[in-house]
């Protein structure tokens, strides 16, 4: 199909954005003769099929072996991937991507727009049973994305169409200004139709798998290692330096740390800094502890269905009482920052709000908290008694104990700490069987909506059951607002509402934290925590 001429060409955007992409080795650098790296991956991935990715362990591997329309650079900026340029049409209601002519699968065949069409339709198809099936509809707003997931229309009706081999048209339900940012997600990779049709679910096995990224699969031993080697067909292969990368799925952080110290590992997984060994790390290898701010927030949520948490005074008092600096800097202490808003300050397109109470001293906050608690009717004879639920983990326990102590400082507050194993915890939370509960929310893409949508009344993980129509309206308005400044203002309004209604008590913003050997170079500071091997190189050592 040819592009209809009548489509108004609103913005001829992008291509060739600045940003480091592929390994940029400074001139004069002494490289190690063997360019191989061993990295931690946290856990065994549930699958190597990108369209079925469930979370970090899967999507980080998908991004090594596959390349989407767009791709993150070393600092997390979205830069051209297989698509070399794109433009929005019809006022942002449709987007046309032009694919680079030299993109190849590892078997040598060209990567075409049809591959993307196939992959995206496969992902939303209920038969594929992808856990991220909702993403194209809910996050990217692709036409019929949600209706297909709901089984109302067939997957063939998805608003993604290959116009020819090199042009892909994505049609949206409504204009979404940040569409391109959502497309860097690890699950939105093209997949090789012929290979999948030939081998079915077994297409991800070494020897069968065909991919289009900088690396291709060489070996996989479940629960031991995943080995990838350079893909000579990758269009930017000339700029790739590392020849072989091995990912180790080590869940136990102490074990990962020992392997790292014994030089069996060049880089731990994201978060791979065992708190018990932190002192030793700071003493012995301080320069190898690498941290930077991450797009994610640790907080406590209040259950609106349980009294007295339907009373804003109680929620506000508990939130004010938390000494966020103490928790972030003293208790956790690996680059985390105190959180006063849900959206981390480094989110793209977000201008942080400073709430009035944020400027107060801790003493002022505690005074106000005391007043609120008394006003809500809590006294020594009628103390505020509640359970704080968290999933079993030493770190969460430490923070919960500190929070309980901080809450006791503002008056008659009695906290019972309840910990549950992960799946039981998720079950209790989803069923609303909690009063106050630990939450963590990490961005799916770099834009405030991925954080703030959580408190939309219709969001599936809004287990607080917070419901403010004004908040919902703002979030829906933001989605269709194309002007970046207007959108930033809306996000500020949303944060202000959260800081009035207090459905949550923010605690800290996460940090990306890893141990990295001094000879590994080339990584930047991607706020989503990705470090792609194609950008790395090993110094002589």
């Amino acid at each position: 199909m040819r592009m209809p001429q009548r489509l108004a060409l609103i913005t001829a955007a992008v291509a060739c954005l600045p940003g480091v992409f592929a390994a940029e080795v400074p001139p004069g650098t002494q490289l190690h003769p063997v360019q191989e790296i061993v990295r931690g991956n946290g856990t065994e991935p549930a699958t190597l099929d990108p369209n079925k990715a469930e979370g970090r362990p899967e999507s980080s591997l998908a991004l090594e072996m596959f390349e989407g329309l767009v791709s993150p650079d070393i600092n997390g900026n979205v830069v051209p991937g297989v698509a070399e340029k794109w433009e929005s049409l019809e006022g942002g209601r449709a987007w046309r991507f032009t694919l680079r002519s030299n993109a190849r699968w590892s078997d040598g065949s060209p990567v075409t727009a049809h591959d993307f069409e196939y992959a995206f339709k496969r992902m939303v198809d209920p038969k594929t049973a992808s856990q991220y099936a909702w993403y194209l509809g809910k996050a990217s707003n692709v036409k019929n994305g949600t209706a297909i997931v709901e089984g109302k229309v067939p997957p063939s009706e998805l608003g993604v169409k290959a116009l020819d081999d090199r042009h892909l048209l994505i049609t949206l339900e409504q204009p979404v200004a940040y569409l391109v940012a959502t497309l860097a997600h690890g699950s939105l990779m093209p997949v090789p139709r012929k290979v999948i049709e030939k081998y079915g679910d077994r297409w991800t096995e070494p020897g069968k798998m065909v991919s289009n990224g900088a690396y291709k699969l060489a070996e996989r031993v479940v629960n031991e290692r995943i080995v990838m080697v350079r893909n000579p067909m990758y269009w930017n292969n000339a700029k790739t330096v590392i020849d072989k990368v091995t990912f180790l799925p080590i869940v136990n952080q102490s074990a990962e740390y020992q392997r790292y110290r014994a030089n069996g590992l060049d880089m731990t997984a994201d978060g791979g800094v065992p708190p018990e060994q932190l002192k030793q790390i700071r003493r012995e290898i301080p320069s190898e502890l690498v941290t930077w701010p991450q797009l994610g927030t640790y907080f406590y949520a209040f259950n609106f269905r349980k009294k007295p948490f339907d009373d804003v005074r109680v929620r506000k008092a508990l939130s004010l009482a938390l000494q966020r600096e103490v928790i972030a800097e003293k208790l956790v202490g690996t680059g985390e920052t105190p959180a006063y808003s849900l959206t981390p300050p480094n989110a793209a397109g977000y201008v942080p709000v400073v709430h009035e109470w944020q400027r107060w001293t801790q003493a002022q906050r505690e005074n106000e908290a005391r007043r609120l608690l008394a006003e809500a009717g809590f006294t020594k004879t009628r103390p505020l008694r509640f359970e704080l639920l968290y999933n079993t983990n030493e770190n969460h326990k430490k923070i919960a104990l500190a929070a309980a102590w901080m809450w006791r400082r503002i008056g008659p507050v009695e906290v019972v700490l309840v910990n549950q194993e992960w799946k039981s915890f998720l079950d209790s939370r989803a069923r609303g069987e909690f009063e106050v509960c630990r939450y963590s929310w990490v961005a799916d893409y770099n834009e405030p909506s991925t954080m703030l949508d959580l408190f939309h009344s219709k969001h599936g993980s809004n287990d607080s059951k917070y419901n403010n129509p004004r908040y919902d309206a703002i979030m829906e308005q933001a989605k269709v607002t194309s002007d970046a400044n207007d959108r930033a203002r809306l996000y500020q309004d949303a944060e202000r509402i959260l800081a009035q209604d207090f459905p949550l008590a923010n605690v800290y913003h996460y940090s990306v934290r890893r141990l990295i050997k001094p000879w590994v170079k080339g990584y930047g500071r991607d706020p989503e925590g990705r470090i792609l091997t194609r950008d790395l190189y090993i110094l002589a050592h």
Partner: protein
Amino acid sequence: MLKFIFRRLVLEALPTLLVLVTVTFFLIRLAPGGPFSTEAAMPPEVMAAVAAKYRLDQPVWQQYLGYLADLARGDFGPSFKYKDFTVNDLVWAAAPASFRLGLFAFVIAVIVGVAAGVTAALRQNTWIDYSVMGVAMIGVVLPNFVLAPALALVFAIWLKWLPAGGWEGGKLMYVVLPVAVLCQHYISVIARITRGSMIEVLGSPYIRTARAKGLPTGYILRRHALKPALLPVISYLGPAFVGIITGSVVVESFFGIPGIGQLFVNGALNRDYPMVLGLTILIGALTIFFNAVVDILYGVIDPRIRL
């Protein structure tokens, strides 16, 4: 003998296994949280699609019958967690690592444990006895999750003699530390059982008679004492062998060994129903089998049992 084996392995084992499958099947479904509950909750429609793919949308009794039908064909079903594989694939791939590790540890544990136990019994109430039993006591109480990092620290990080983890198909270098950690507990238990039973046997009238006849100690030990003294050890070894070859969760996860222990613990944590069921059946079947083997060995060693 054949009749005995047939009775043990067919008439008794199959109903036992069926009970095991049934209880596990329903019990694991009672655990809170499902295989597909995640931090970012899936929309109900996505959840329904996932459930349909894994037959979880059917009534439980229908799932149960379906599972039994698959099982009869030797099909343990798809893994709910590791979507690129079936349970058969994963168990088949993981078994050699656990088996190799377990076999090494078992052989060492039996040899060292029996030798230590016999030595202690022969030198009862001397400093040798006390030191062997003292070390054995430490071995019983010292948990693997303490010993594993300690050994890795000494031999991998300080001395740099051995790798801190990894498997590499079971190369000798990679096997040493995990085997050391895995066998220490078994050595201790075997040494304690051997000592106790050896002391009892050495005090029995027929040994006294043998001594009175002037037979040398070594001869008495080999010819008359060892066999009966080992009976309690052998009854311990049956289930211990199954335990040791089907994987140690701690040793495998600490040293990054791709074995059954890791599959089992991840299966339980992820509520991977078919994985947990498959491994329960496997371990159940092995336990029944090796208990039968122990009973047969009993008969071979001790003629009194055959009577």
